[in-house]
């Protein structure tokens, strides 16, 4: 029960309070923000969620191992956590890419284009590093990864909805395209800031 509540808390906190796109701006570039169909957003978000969870599950024990090794060898190197996180992300990418190519060519056909923006994405690395540095257990880290994936997908869907509405209105010429999208995200971010009320840990 305790496990479940901690897991749920990590999911909610990552999905809403620390939404990767709207409170930290991670994983947002013009290409992902202007995906044209909810179907592709869902595919991207789903792939990203799976990759994040798997990478978090690999990175957590790896990080533990590296930490103990570091304390034994008196090694002083900063950002070790990020290196382990990045290595585990690359491992997951290679495993998924080559695995689906060898065993499930049909899945590979769909994933092949999506894999790269979904894996080599600031949102994945950022949420894993935050989960590792804030002292979560392995379940909580997985929950945080799941929540950040859900939050990413939800934010992209919300932005897509806003873009549909903006397309109907008479936006001044200078604001068309990227600026109005950023403004929309900014006001959403302001609204979510009301929920948090203080600065996030970076």
């Amino acid at each position: 029960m305790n496990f479940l509540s901690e897991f749920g808390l990590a999911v909610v906190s990552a999905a809403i309070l620390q939404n990767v796109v709207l409170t930290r701006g991670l994983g947002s570039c013009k290409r992902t923000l202007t995906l044209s169909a909810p179907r592709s957003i869902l595919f991207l978000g789903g792939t990203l969620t799976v990759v994040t969870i798997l990478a978090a599950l690999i990175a957590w024990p790896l990080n533990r191992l590296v930490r103990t090794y570091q304390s034994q060898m008196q090694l002083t190197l900063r950002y070790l956590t990020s290196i382990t996180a990045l290595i585990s992300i690359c491992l997951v990418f290679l495993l998924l890419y080559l695995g689906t190519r060898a065993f499930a060519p049909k899945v590979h056909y769909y994933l092949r284009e999506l894999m790269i923006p979904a894996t080599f994405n600031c949102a994945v690395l950022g949420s894993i590093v935050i989960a590792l540095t804030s002292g979560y257990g392995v379940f909580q880290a997985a929950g945080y990864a799941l929540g950040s994936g859900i939050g990413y997908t939800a934010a992209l869907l919300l932005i897509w909805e806003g873009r549909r509405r903006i397309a109907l209105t008479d936006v001044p010429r200078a604001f068309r395209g990227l600026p109005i999208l950023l403004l929309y995200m900014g006001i959403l971010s302001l609204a979510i800031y009301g929920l948090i009320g203080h600065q996030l840990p970076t």
Partner: protein
Amino acid sequence: MKLHARTAPHIRHPESSRTLMSDAIILLLVLCVLAFLYYGLRALLVCAVSVLAAVAADLVCVLLRGRRPNPRDLSAVVTGLVIALMMPATISFTAVATAAVFAIAIVKHPFGGTGSNLFNPAAAGFSFAAICWPVQVFSYPLPFDRIPLWGQAASSGQLVYQAGEMSVRLYQNPVFVLKVGGIPTNSLSEMLLGNYPGPMGATNILVLLACLCYLIYRGTVRWQLPISFLASCAAVVLLFPRESTDRIQSLLYELMSGLLLFAAVFLLSDPVTRPKRDSALIVYGIFAGIITMFCRYSGGFEESVTFAILLANAVMPAIDRHDEELHRLLRRKRLEFGKLKKTQKA
């Protein structure tokens, strides 16, 4: 046959943007007069600064867009008045003016100006001011205190507003007491009459209820929206009360304190940012109510209904679209069913 090519509004109706806005302005002016009675000349000055800033920003933005200014467009006045009435009477003029300019120049005009803004400008302007000056925006003078006109809040941590020799003590709204987990000590009858420290226009619950009735009677506001909003807020409070000793009392305090009722009357029912159909209005109201209570319970600020309204505005297009799809589906099913019956009869 002679055909005229005309642009969009093909349906004429006595209700126009001007009548909607002038309805709102009449009520807001009534609230202004009440604020003048409670807080003196300073309240009127705050309103005037806010309206002037909003109208000036609107004019500049319209000219920058290369349009001709429309003197019949009163929405900037409404935005300015709503922002001013959500503030305490001791707010500094820069804060009010910033909120009004932010509302018009950043939230309203880039999205296309009057009639196509995606978010409620007044809510966004107030939120920005609340983030920038949280202490000033959320500490209020007592009614009937004499407030000097040109003062400013003391920079040290005390809640004092001073001008030269004179100083006025500032207090917290009951919603702050609820936020820290207590029960307010204000009597309910005084809260009905607005005799407690609070925002200029949002304390007088009886007058606000009368405003709501007037707007519903005029048809400016559909009854589904505020009722569903307040009902869902009440349901959340009854199910998960912050102070579980007396549920009814805590319910009354939750609903009457802060900006909740004011937001239900003037912010949520803004005709631009609310959905179109009645059934969608109910869904929107319930959603906004739940988010508002969630924001209040876990938010960083004591009064976060404006943030919740911004979030609800972002979801509004989705609600509208799905509602329309649902209605289309229902209509199609009804038609098919009718056809089926006819063929069976034949």
